[in-house]
């Protein structure tokens, strides 16, 4: 694939609009768009307007989150909904800020049970899952073990 940061916004679509930031250049980093409560500190890994802990409607602010985490659980799904092809990994990744987030696993990782292990340190990547009807890549966030990335930490 093209490097994600070579794509301009009109060149791609997002699988879950508003869920993550697509790097806009080689020095920019991908992240999940989370929310954090200024009042009580509650943190969630997605955009949310009302704090689920203190139920304030004006204390949530957007935070960049999810660049790193630990693999909490994973399995290989051998059945897939429309737009996905089995077998493919499904996983939960535990973020340092607390929440666990549902995630797919990078295409870099072979779809084999022993390619991953609970507790592994993971990093966020943006990858295409398919092309849309106009041929544009449909991007989403995925995770891969930090070790599998040549650049290390």
């Amino acid at each position: 694939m093209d490097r994600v940061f070579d794509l301009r916004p009109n060149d791609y679509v997002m699988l879950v609009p508003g869920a993550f930031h697509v790097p806009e250049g080689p020095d920019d980093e991908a992240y999940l768009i989370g929310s954090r409560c200024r009042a009580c500190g509650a943190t969630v890994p997605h955009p949310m307007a009302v704090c689920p802990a203190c139920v304030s409607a004006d204390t949530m602010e957007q935070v960049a989150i999810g660049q790193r985490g630990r693999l909490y659980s994973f399995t290989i799904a051998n059945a897939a909904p429309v737009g996905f092809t089995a077998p493919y990994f499904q996983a939960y990744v535990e973020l340092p800020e607390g929440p666990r987030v549902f995630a797919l696993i990078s295409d870099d990782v072979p779809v084999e049970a022993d390619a991953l292990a609970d507790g592994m340190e993971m990093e966020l990547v943006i990858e295409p899952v398919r092309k849309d009807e106009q041929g544009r890549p449909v991007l989403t966030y995925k995770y891969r073990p930090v070790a599998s990335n040549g650049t290390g930490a």
Partner: protein
Amino acid sequence: MRDVAIIGVGAHPAGKFEDKRLKDLGREAVWKALGDAGVGAADVQVAYFGNSLGGLLTGQEGIRGQVVLQESGLGGIPVVNVENACASGATALRGAWLEVASGNADMALAVGAEKMFVGDTAKSISALAADSEIELSQMGMQFSAAYAIHPKTNLKGKMKEYGWTPADFAKVVVKNSHNGSLNPYAQHRKPLAEEDVLTSRMIADPLTLYMCSSIADGAAAAIVCPAEDAKRYTDKPPVRIGAIALTSGQYRLAGDTKPDMVAMTAGLAYEAAGVGPEDVDIAEVHDAMAPAELLIYERLGFCGPGEGPRLIDDGVTTIGGRRPVNPSGGLVARGHPVGATGLLQVAELVWQLRGEAGDRQAGNNPKVALTHNQGGLLLGMDSAACTVSILLR
């Protein structure tokens, strides 16, 4: 609030019925329920209709209850279409119960129907996923896999914590497929051995094919009236609704210490019905994946943490046991036509409480029955809807 009784139930078998439309499935269940109650279509004053996937799978939005009821000869009455993912059936019964309990109506109908076989399995899987929050379904979340790895159920984690093995999960299927083999309404009627279950195709480790409920068409219906009027319509033992507890998911932040959703819902139901887990003689629970049954035992208070497999080993939850669970075969064997499931559970328990369950009749003369029907998945980590109902003879 008045005491409410179920005076009639009816079901369309779960399975693959290529030539039947949603309205055909629903009509059969409605007319069987009318016949069972000994009442006519014109006696029904209000209806609740539960369906979850008809929009995405059949193209029928908005008015599914009216469509099915028109085909069943019922028109003019208030019809409320309800949805709560896999708990739509129980939600429909709750609506019918409230109409009668409140005195707003003297006879109410609850119907659940689902048409899942539409000639495209991936489409059916997608529709199921659409019952979870869109940010999850868009990500390609597949329900069986998600169940295996979700922090609330995390099966490999439970295996480590409790020492459970895949053979423990298979026990649930062996028990439930045996029950299903005795049930003419069941989708899967072949009794399975542990070996069959463990060697069936892996769907999402540790879940094999036979541990997962499958796509199904089906329908069920129940007719309720004030308990004091029940004898007027039927000689069959009336089944009273002791409680229908419904809850929605709570956002589970990191370090969450709120009570578990199933345990909380069961607690509300026990309190409302004035019974405790020790009083439950028979139960139908939401084993969409077989291991769920083991976790649900705990959460309903049937056993301590990790003790689920022993209940099966000791025969406690078999048909002949002290507290049969999923005598119908459960979702895994009887089948899981999503919007119908909650009412299929209710129909089974009414038959069991009346002693009409034939070859699969519980041997313990059950008087207190429990259904657990749950569905949907929120970003906040809980299921979207959970119901626990208590039925009393």
